[in-house]
């Protein structure tokens, strides 16, 4: 079974699906904590790293070098986790950070706006409907622009993923079953060759990060 990356908009049920998959496969599940590891690698507080990494596009030019190094640190931390081929990742840009590697299944979850807004207006968050809609819209928009700028791609484009699952009429449990079934297909088998490629990738990332002054 391969590494599984889960991309999704905010409040689209990505984390719960990732946890369900990790539980079903007996894999570790990693999300935003990857940023902490990356921050340790470059010796800055995690807030600095995530702030600069996810900075508004208007600040991008000024931060280019630093951002590249931070992103490399994230990629290295992810590659190290993924070197065994056993991982469910639901953090930043998994579909790009592990692009073109064998033994990686990239999945995307989409959910109707209504469902996402409802989470925020529920008793737990107590947002007004308007504020909730604005919040979801803004986060989506920023993520879209970020991906466009960093990778020149549209984060919603299904051709970036092996599998896109729409949670409108599919439960999280079912999404978990479907993705696990995809991961069980022979195309994603982590053979010794694939494992070697994943290990080599982690090593290459570490070396690049060292050269860039981190790690």
């Amino acid at each position, binding site marked *: 079974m391969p590494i599984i990356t889960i991309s999704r908009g905010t409040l689209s049920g990505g984390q719960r699906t990732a946890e369900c998959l990790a539980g079903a496969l007996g894999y570790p599940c990693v999300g935003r904590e990857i940023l902490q590891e990356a921050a340790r690698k470059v010796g800055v507080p995690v807030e600095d790293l995530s702030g600069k990494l996810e900075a508004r596009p208007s600040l991008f030019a000024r931060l280019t070098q630093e951002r590249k190094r931070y992103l490399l640190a994230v990629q290295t931390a992810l590659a190290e986790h993924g070197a065994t081929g056993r991982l469910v990742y639901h953090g930043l840009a998994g579909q790009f950070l592990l692009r073109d590697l064998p033994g990686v299944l990239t999945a995307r979850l*989409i959910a109707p706006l209504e469902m996402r807004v409802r989470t925020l207006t529920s008793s737990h968050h107590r947002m007004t409907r308007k504020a909730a809609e604005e919040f979801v819209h803004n986060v989506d928009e920023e993520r879209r622009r970020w991906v466009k700028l960093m990778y020149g791609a549209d984060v919603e484009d*299904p051709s970036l993923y092996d599998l896109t*699952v*729409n949670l409108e009429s599919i439960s999280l449990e079912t999404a978990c079953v*479907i993705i696990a079934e*995809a991961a069980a*297909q*022979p195309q994603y088998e982590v053979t010794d060759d694939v494992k070697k490629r994943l290990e080599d990738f982690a090593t290459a990332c570490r070396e690049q990060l060292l050269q860039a002054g981190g790690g």
Partner: protein
Amino acid sequence: MPIISICRGTKSGGQAVAKCLAKQLRYPLVAREVVQEAASDLGVSEADLSRGMERTPRLWNRQSMERRLYIAAVRAALAEHVAGGDLIYHGRAGQVLLAGLPGVLKVRLIAPMGTRVKALMESDGMDSTSAEQYIRHVDGVRARWVRMMYGEDVEDPVLYNMVINLKTLSIPAACTIVTKAAEQPDFAVTDEVKARLIDFRLACRVKLGLARARDTRALNLQIEAHGGIVDVSGAAPALSSGKTGEQIVEVARSIQGVEEVRLRVEWFDPYP
């Protein structure tokens, strides 16, 4: 198990996946048949019906009436198959023709352009440039058609329950994944779902009946069925004869399975 609707671009492997599913689940495979059935029902040729459906709309009432009739006939033909359940549909616009229906698993299959070009070169002996041109042309025609008819972007994943990319996954693998999804409780065909599919068939029959009848064919009305009760809504011109309402009811009541017609039409003055 639900009805499975497969949408794909030309040479994206969708047809092979549909065939694999039909074999695995022992379901009938339906695609062009619905267009053929609609054409024979209306007494026109399949080519005429396809052309009429695809014609870009102009502000010309006769053409838009004809298109509405053709689409109603195709949808009604599909609804006849759908009401029986257990079906793989890989024809035109299943995701929009069957939108909102329960018990339907809507899947889109995509494949990288390079793979599609290679498939077309192998099957039709084309060179790579003309193969790519052809694929882009067909994709463009279909996308425009879905946008024109339904205002939707055929590539938008929101229209489907899942999108499978055949870049890494093989056709048998896609077939296995779709089968697994179809087995999940989210798509169970309960008695309630069955009743909805039968309601859908009745609504499609009524819509087709109205699109065919001389007195009602110019109207664009929404039809919903609940058991044998049919709700007709939408806006229609209040003509001086004052008989349009009666004519709608008469046409609808003549359709097999209709017990009662509830008219909820908003009448407007065509010559204000």
